[in-house]
């Protein structure tokens, strides 16, 4: 069933379109930056943006910072919201279930396909923005004289292999963060027969969580908000890596995945399929 879901994933034009759009944002920013040569001053603007003019190999990190807060969750909400509700709307859900595909098996395959989708999107965005960054900004070798070293957020410099490892770790962390959010969307998808409704409900969760984060009165529940540790992947680019929030973030997302996958299963397993 997982291979079937993956085939559906790659055969779907919408998937590639959404990833293309995710790449479009960093591409546009890179072009504007290289034309104007006006980087935001350090400490302002998007993370890493001030540094990328000197070294394009850091551009993937800047790109991640651009797509993470809104665009990536948007794509995840649309994809995960479609998981069950979309099948329900096209009527293919009933035919899958009488094939028969076990309900838990179907749900697990959907979660697996969601994971692959997030990874695919992240990898394409990272590789694409790396190419764009190096093409437009160079690797910084010209200025510093030694090939491709990058200044970490804390000031010390990182060599390219170190940077690659940290980039990979950051991508992994973001995948887990998105998966936590995607599982919430999957849950809505088992509740609703409308993929759009499920996606919007997930975005409502995202927005509510973001609002709470800025609210001092919400202090006690802040550590449990799904978006709370999303930006902690930046800590991978500190030297030494600051693990505190990363660990908490991973644990929190694991909790969200477990709880909402469990809720999805509980709801879906006993649901009357009337679509």
């Amino acid at each position, binding site marked *: *069933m997982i*291979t*079937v879901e993956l*085939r*559906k994933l790659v*055969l*779907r*034009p919408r998937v590639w379109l959404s990833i293309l759009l995710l790449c479009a944002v960093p591409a546009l920013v890179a072009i504007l930056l290289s034309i104007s040569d006006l980087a935001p001053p350090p400490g302002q603007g998007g993370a890493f943006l001030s540094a990328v003019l000197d070294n394009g190999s850091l551009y993937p990190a800047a790109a991640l910072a651009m797509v993470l807060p809104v665009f990536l969750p948007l794509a995840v909400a649309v994809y995960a919201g479609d998981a069950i509700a979309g099948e329900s709307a*096209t*009527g*293919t859900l*009933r*035919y*899958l*279930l*009488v*094939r*028969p*595909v*076990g309900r838990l098996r179907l749900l697990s395959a959907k979660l697996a396909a969601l994971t692959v989708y997030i990874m695919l999107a992240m990898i394409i965005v990272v590789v694409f923005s790396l190419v764009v960054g190096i093409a437009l900004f160079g690797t910084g070798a010209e200025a510093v004289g030694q090939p491709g070293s990058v200044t970490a957020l804390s000031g010390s410099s990182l060599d390219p292999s170190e940077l690659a490892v940290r980039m990979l770790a950051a991508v992994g962390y973001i995948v887990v963060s998105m998966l936590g959010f995607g599982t919430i969307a999957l849950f809505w998808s088992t509740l609703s027969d409308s993929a759009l409704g499920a996606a919007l409900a997930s975005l409502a969760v995202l927005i509510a969580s973001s609002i709470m984060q800025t609210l001092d009165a919400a202090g006690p529940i802040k550590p449990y908000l799904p978006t709370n540790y999303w930006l902690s992947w930046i800590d991978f680019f500190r030297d030494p890596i600051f693990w505190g929030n990363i660990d908490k973030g991973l644990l929190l997302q694991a909790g969200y995945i477990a709880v909402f996958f469990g809720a999805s299963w509980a709801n879906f397993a*006993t649901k*009357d*399929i*009337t679509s």
Partner: protein
Amino acid sequence: MIVTHGLTKRYGKVVAVDGVDLNVREGDRYGFLGPNGSGKTTLVRLLLGLVYATSGSLEVLGSSTPAKVLPQIGALVEGPAAYPHLSGRQNLRLLDAAGPGGARRTRKRRIEEALEQVGLSGVDRRPVRAYSLGMRQRLGIAAALLRKPVLLILDEPTNGLDPRGIREIRDLLIRLNEAGTTVFLSSHLLSEVEQLCTRVGIVDHGRLVLQDDLMNLRAPTGHVVVRTPDGGKVASLLDGQVVSRDGDRLLIRHTDAAVLNTLLVGEGVRVSAIGEERQSLEDVVLDVTGHGSDRFGTNGGGAS
């Protein structure tokens, strides 16, 4: 093949299926007949395990949990469905790969066979989005046939087909049935059930009001229809036995057409057509669904 006892499904306050005792035997071509909204589709969903019964029991292919026997069942539920951006073949490949039991090496052959059976073997790579309603319907039936099921459960299988298509599908179902497949078909089309089925269940407001072999339902009425230009002569000859007279068509109370024919011809009556009157399925349906409240208690497990 399918036996249910007091099968009931409520959606909130609405009772969609109400105490249905279904009995479909092996080799039947069973027509499940009822007006739209009478609970046909809900019953099909119950049989396939898509919705869960509120009360009552069901047994399909000897198992009380549909999930176990679903690999041996081909189904069409409330219209066909397919991924619109993929071709028919791609859809069938995905569907076949999704469930257990379909060997990968026979997949291509089985798909081509199923498409051949429903008359779609020459279909090109166009996406299902571009299919006509009839083509989608054929694709849906092909999907049901993919695993060579022993039981076919088809909900309105000829929906959207033109007369030729309906004829093709009917012939296909009869062929499959003669090869040993039990066919359970739900429909609101009297003529479809009358022409295809050997056994009929009639549902009204969620209740099974009648279940019997079509032969028994279409029993002779005890009347003989005679067409003759000598209507007046017949009327005087068989005074009291003529039930009605409409032009050259006379309805005569008599049990044997052959005997009556001999009698009439012997008296010099020119008979242009003669035959016993049989109740039409339409009469039966209108009878049990129209003012059928007195028939509720008599449906049981079938009078065969």
